[in-house]
C-alpha cells in the first residue's frame, strides 16, 4: 500500500525543526518501524540523511521507541508500542504525521529521538529497595498474597518510554513516578523506605521540570502497558500523609 508520511526533521537539539513529506510503499504485515526502515533505505539510496528514531527490542518491552503518530504517543492502538503497531491498521493513501515526544524534560536529540535521562534520575532519587547483594533472607520467608503481588506487578510493567508525559498537556511524569512508587509500596520489602521514597522521587520529578498532574488521565489512555491512574491517586495520598508522619 502507498502511504504518505509527514515527518518531523530536526538536525540538532537547538536547530529549528520542520515537517518533511515522503511517500513509501508498505506491506500490511510490516510493523510501523519496518515501514520506517523502508523509508530510510529509500533515503540512503538517494544519499540523503535517514530519519533518526529510537528503537531496539521491537517487541514492545524495552521502551526505546518514542514517537507521536497522528497526535498520539505510540499511535492509534491502545496498549501498543510503536514497534508493535502493524501497518494493517492503515489503508492505501493514508497520510501519517510523525513527530517526536514533545515534553520540556525530554529535549530533542535529532528528528524523532529525545533524551529521557530525566526518568533515570527520578529512579535514582529513590526508586529502589536499599538492599545490598547478599543481605536477603529466604525468598519464601515473607508470604505475599497473590493478588497483592499481581497489583505490584501491574505497576511494575512500566517500560519507561515516556508516553505518559508526552500525552499529558502539562508534560507531567506522575504516571511514571507513581507506578514505581506503588510497585514498591505494595510489597513488604518496599514499605520501610516508602515515605522517604515518595518525597524524594516527587522532588526530583519537579526538579527535572515535569509539569503538575491535573487529572486529565490522557497518560492512562496512551500508556502502552495500560498502567492505571489509580497509581497517581495512591501517590498523592502517600505524599500528603508522608508530610505529617515521616520520622525525619
Amino acid at each position: 500500500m502507498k502511504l504518505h508520511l509527514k515527518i518531523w526533521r530536526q538536525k540538532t537539539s537547538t536547530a529549528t525543526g520542520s515537517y518533511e513529506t515522503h511517500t513509501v510503499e508498505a506491506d500490511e504485515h510490516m510493523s510501523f518501524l519496518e515501514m520506517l526502515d523502508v523509508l530510510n533505505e529509500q533515503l540512503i539510496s538517494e544519499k540523503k540523511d535517514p530519519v533518526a528514531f529510537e528503537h531496539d527490542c521491537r517487541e514492545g518491552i524495552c521502551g526505546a521507541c518514542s514517537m507521536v503518530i497522528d497526535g498520539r504517543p505510540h499511535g492509534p492502538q491502545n496498549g501498543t508500542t510503536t514497534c508493535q503497531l502493524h501497518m494493517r491498521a492503515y489503508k492505501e493513501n493514508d497520510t501519517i504525521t510523525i513527530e517526536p515526544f514533545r515534553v520540556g524534560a525530554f529535549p530533542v536529540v535529532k528528528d524523532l529521538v529525545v533524551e529521557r535521562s530525566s526518568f533515570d534520575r527520578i529512579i535514582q532519587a529513590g526508586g529502589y529497595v536499599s538492599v545490598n547483594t547478599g543481605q536477603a533472607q529466604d525468598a519464601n520467608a515473607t508470604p505475599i498474597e497473590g493478588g497483592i503481588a499481581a497489583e505490584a506487578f501491574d505497576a511494575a510493567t512500566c517500560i519507561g518510554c515516556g508516553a505518559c508525559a508526552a500525552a499529558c498537556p502539562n508534560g507531567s511524569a506522575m504516571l511514571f513516578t507513581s507506578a514505581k512508587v506503588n510497585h514498591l509500596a505494595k510489597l513488604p520489602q518496599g514499605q520501610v523506605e516508602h515515605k522517604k521514597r515518595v518525597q524524594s522521587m516527587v522532588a526530583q520529578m519537579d526538579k527535572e521540570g515535569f509539569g503538575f498532574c491535573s487529572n486529565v488521565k490522557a497518560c492512562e489512555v496512551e500508556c502502552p502497558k495500560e498502567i492505571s491512574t489509580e497509581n497517581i491517586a495512591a501517590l498523592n495520598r502517600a505524599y500528603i500523609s508522608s508530610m505529617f508522619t515521616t520520622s525525619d
Partner: protein
Amino acid sequence: MALENKVPPGPLSEKWTKYKSTMNLVAPNNKRRIEVIVVGTGLAGASAAATLGELGYQVKCFCFHDSPRRAHSIAAQGGINAAKNYQNDGDSVYRLFYDTIKGGDYRSREANVHRLAEASTEIIDQCVAQGVPFAREYGGLLANRSFGGVQVSRTFYARGQTGQQLLLGAYQALSRQIAKGTVKMYNRHEMLDLVKVDGKARGIIARNLLTGELERFAAHSVVLGTGGYGNVYYLSTNAMGSNVSAAWRAVRKGALMANPCFTQIHPTCIPVSGEYQSKLTLMSESLRNDGRVWVPKSVADAEAIQRGEKTALDIPEEDRDYYLERRYPAFGNLVPRDVASRAAKVACDEGKGVSKTGLAVYLDFASAIIRYGKSEALTTGISNPTEAKIKELGEEVVAKKYGNLFQMYEKITGENPYKMPMKIYPAVHYTMGGLWVDYNLETNVPGLFALGEANFSDHGANRLGASALMQGLADGYFVIPYTIGSFLANEIRTPAFSTDMPEFEQAENDVANRMEKIMNIQGDQSVESFHRRLGKIMWDHCGMSRNAEGLKEGRQKIRALREEFYRDVFVPGRADEFNPELEKALRVADFLEMGEVMILDALERNESCGGHFREEYKSEEGEAKRNDADYTHVSAWEWDDTNPILHKEALEFENVELKTRSYK
C-alpha cells in the same frame, strides 16, 4: 598458548565455598582507590556494577542505550531457574548442575556449572528482597513452572516478563549506586576499543553517541557484560542494537573467542512473514508447558493448509502428528531447545509445514484449555458445565498464565491464538559461545573479565530454558564481586592510570582511523543491506544444520562480502555527530569477522553436539552424535586476518559420566 582454567582443587560441591573463603581480598580502604570499568547494563553488567559499587570500588559503567534499563535482558520472557526445591519434587543443587551439564551436551566446565547451580538459590532471595514481583500461589508463596530438558518445576517467573522484572531490579540497584556516587554512569557511550597497558586491560575507548566524540576511560580492570552475537544472523530474537563489538574488540586485542559455533536456535518463534522483516519475536518456552506441538500426518493436508484451503481446525485428531510426544515420550513437548528445533525442521523438510512458506508448525492450546476449564469448573462448583463454559473457564486460566504472550502473538500475526493454534518456527535466540574465561571469569587478557552471555562458560553446546537469566545474575551478583579480587588484590599499589598514556592515544587513533576508513568509502549500498546478506549466508551455511562443504562455501562468501563492504558501503553524515548509521556500520564490520570465526569453528568441530548439528555426524534415528574422544574440549580462537588460530582447553568430567543424551 596453554589455557589454564584455574579451577580450584577439592570435591566439586566444596570448590566454590572453599575458594571464596580463602581467596585474596581487597580491603575497604583500598577498594576506594581502585577503579573498575563495567561495559553493558543487562542482567550481568548492571548486577556487577551495582554490587561492585556496594563493595566500595569506584565503578564506571557504560551502555550504548539512552538508559541502562533498555538492555536486551529486558525482553527475556519465561523465567529463571533456581534449585530451591520449593515444590518438593526432588530438585537439588546437584540436579540443576546435572541437568545443565547434560542439556549442554557435555561441553561445559563442571566446576563453573556447579557454582552456577549453587548461586541460583541466592539470586531468588536477592531479587525478592529488591521487590521483584514474582508469581505467587494462593498461600502467598512463590510459584514455579517447568522448562525444557528437566523433570522438576524450578522456574520462577513474573508472567511472561521475567527478564523485565529482574532487569529493573538490577537497574534499580544500579541507580541506587549511581545516586550514591559509587558508580558513574555513561549512557549513549559505545565501547570501540580495549586499551591494554603492559599486557593488562586498563581502559576503553568509547564513542559518545550524542556528539560523536571519542573519549578515553582508564581503570584498574575492565568487565564486559555485553551479551551475545546472535545478530550476526541479522534475523534473530535479539534487539536491533545487540552486537558483538565490545567482545570482538577484545578479541582483536588478544582475547580468545570460545566455541563460537555454539548458537541456540529457539524452537518457538513467530515465523518470518516477508522480506522486509527486521527481527523475530520469541514465544516463550513456558508455552510448551501447556501447548502441544504438531503438524498434519499427511503432506496432502499440509499442502492444503499452505494453500489456505484448510486450517488447523479442519484436521481431525487422528490425522495429527504430535511429533515431539511421539519421538520423545519421556519429555514430550518439553525436550530441550536444540532437539525441538531440529524436529520442527525435519517436519517442515518433509513438506508438513503449516504456513504459506511451509516453514511453521502448530503450537496448540486446545487441550490445555479444556483441561483447565474442567478443573476450574470443579473447583468453582459448577456441575455439568457446557462445553462452551469449559472453554471460557479454560481460556481465563490460560490468559492468566500467558496473557501477554497471547496478546503479543495476536498483535504481530493478526490471529487469535485462543481459537486457532499458534504457528511457530525456530529462530536464532542465544549464543552459548563467547569470550574464553577461566574459573574467575577472567579472559586470557589479565584484568579483562567477561560475564553472562558474553562469556562461554556455563551452557556448553546448548542452553536450557530459564538459565540465561540465572547465569547473568549469578555472574554479576555472586561471582565477579569475589573473583575480581583475584586480580585486584595484586593491584592495590597501582596508582590510577592517566588517559594521556601513549597506549590510550594509540587506541584512540586506531578507532578514529577505522571510522574514517568506513566513512570515506562513500559507496552505493546501505549498511542494512550488507547485514541482511551476512545473515542469509550465516543462516544458510551455519544455521540449524551444517556440513563441511556448505561451511567452506560460507567462509568464501563471507570473505567476499567483507571485501565488498569495505569497497561499497555507504554511511551518510559525519563521524563527529549523532549518527546511527555509523554505529550500525561499525557493528556490522565486526560481525563480518565474527561470522568467519563461527564458520571456522563449526568446520573444525567434526561432531554433532547440542545446537551444533553437523549432517555428517548423526545416529540412525537422526539424533546428534558426539565424538567424545576427539572433541571433549573448548575451542578457543585467536583472531588473525588470514588464518585464525585454534587453542584448546580439555574438559575434564570427574563427577558426571558422559552419556548419549536421551530424552526418549
